[in-house]
């Protein structure tokens, strides 16, 4: 069983707002140098989903990452968690892509890598929030897909997936090979284990440039974008909060009741 997991490096989404600067001339949102790069949390859960299958029935797990100037320590995290191989699509040309150009390049990389039974992605990335790359890979490779999974089991060449829906979940069975995107309801991803570290230190990432996967640099990254960013701006947050006064918390709470009743809100 060959499992591919696609992971994206992003600026820590838990970082406070003040640690980002918006440059509205250049339309970029820049994290300060202090902000660490992390794996997109949903992608980390996709790695976890792959490793649970590996624990259960054995599998070779290959992590794919795409970008320019990737942080080597972060790219290795899936391997420290228990993945077997690491392939980086890394080149200046891959920078600033959109879902379309990213999915296309990943699909070509996955094809070049050879055989696959299951391709896992996070449901969306916490930075651009598009949630399209998994669907794109499925399309480019001609595979069926299931999105927003919270549980994946492999039974007789099929994946049985619990797909999160707004009022519960549905159980979906998909023939492999297939693409599945993973949601946070899957549960906590494991921490890198000490026992993996020696083996992981031996894993050297394979690095491919656009020419290695047979794509022209002009159709990846920024140049391959189909969706054009016109403007980045801060949302207008209105709200002048009336903070309840009082000597004690109880008094403040009573004042809240009085205020809300007077304003005919409650």
């Amino acid at each position, binding site marked *: 069983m060959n499992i591919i997991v696609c992971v994206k490096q992003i600026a820590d989404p838990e970082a406070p707002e003040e640690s*980002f600067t*918006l440059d509205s001339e250049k339309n970029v*949102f820049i994290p300060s140098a202090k902000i660490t790069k992390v794996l997109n949390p949903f992608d980390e859960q996709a790695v976890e989903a792959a490793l649970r299958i590996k624990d259960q029935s054995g599998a070779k797990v290959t992590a794919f990452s795409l970008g320019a100037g990737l942080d080597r320590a972060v790219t290795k995290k899936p391997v420290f968690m228990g993945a077997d191989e690491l392939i980086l699509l890394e080149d200046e040309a891959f920078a600033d892509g*959109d879902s*379309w150009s990213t*999915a296309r390049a990943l699909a070509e990389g996955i094809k070049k890598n050879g055989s696959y039974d299951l391709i896992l992605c996070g*449901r*969306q990335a916490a*930075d*651009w*929030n*598009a*949630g*399209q790359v998994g*669907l794109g890979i499925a*399309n*480019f490779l*001609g595979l*069926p*897909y*299931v999105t927003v999974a919270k549980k994946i089991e492999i039974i007789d060449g099929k994946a049985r997936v619990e797909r*999160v*829906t*707004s*009022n*519960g979940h*549905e*159980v*979906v069975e*998909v023939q492999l090979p*297939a693409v599945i995107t993973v949601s*946070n*309801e899957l549960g906590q991803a494991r921490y890198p284990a000490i026992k993996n570290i020696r083996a992981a230190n031996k894993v050297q990432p394979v690095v491919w440039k656009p020419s290695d996967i047979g794509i022209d640099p002009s159709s990846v990254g920024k140049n391959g974008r*189909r*969706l*054009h*960013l*016109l*403007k*980045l*701006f*801060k*949302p207008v*947050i209105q709200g*002048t*909060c*009336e903070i*309840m006064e009082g000597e004690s*918390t*109880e008094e*403040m*709470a*009573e004042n*809240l*009741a*009085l205020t*809300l*009743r007077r304003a005919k*809100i*409650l």
Partner: protein
Amino acid sequence: MGDHKHIVVYGEIIEGQLGAMTKELLGGGRGLADVLGEDLVAVFIGDGIGETAREAYAFGADRVYAMDIPGAYEANLYAGGLANILEHEQPRYFLFGHDDQGADLGPALAFKLNVAAATDCVELSVEEGTKRLLVTKPVYGALVMAKFSTDDLPQIVTVRPKSMIAPDPVDRTGEVRSLDAGSTALNGRVKVLEKIVEESEGIKLEDAELIVSGGRGIGDAEGFKKLAEVARELKGAMGASRVACDNEWVPATIQVGITGKIVAPRIYIAVGISGASQHMSGCSRSKTIIAINKDPRAAIFKQAQYGVVGDWKIVLPVLMDKLKALD
């Protein structure tokens, strides 16, 4: 590409009725169609839905199509089916809701048609001259807004729930044209075995007029029981932040935020919620936000209209007693 015209909306029938998201899309789509001087078209997929689909006329559609596909929704099958509409319509824009089905189908159809999709958009407008659709969506956990467009046609967009206004129905009807589902290579490779409803009883979160929502500050599942009681007494529904759901204090179905539910009640009472942008993005369209939090610097106070800086365990019981005393 010059022949692309009109706006197609992907419609859904939920429990035998036109879905709330569908009405919102028809409202938003009607506005865009009027700017362009073009038609608004609705397409539905499902099992024997013709009669209900007809209602889309009352909400602004100029043409309605229905495709009969028996059985439960399955993304690969529906996306394949939707591509067949192109034999009848070459839309300029194709709008989906950003929900269980639309978030799945919109991008899949886009890749199939070799065009770009923009997802989870909260604002749509027509660019003068080019007639391109300009879309705005929150990014970086809603810390910033991004405006996008594309030269691809059709432009495929998924729209966040509660960001367009559903129109009042008018006395207007027409015929429902039937569409052939066709078949694709992927047919039969995915099967929906079961649909499981985990939703708690009572008022649906999306429909509630009042929501009492809890976050990390509630501390445990026990705390949420108290919150649920308050919600019940106020005849509202209970919501939660992602932290509370991930900790399994409450079911994931009540999560409010970017990856949870988008709500816009009349009153949103945020209890022990710090106000992270990912959460606020899911409730910022509420009419009145009331915040209860121990931390005076919590971001929630920047967006709330009324606030109490204090321990919710003290605030809530006193608030409820006082409200009763004032009745």
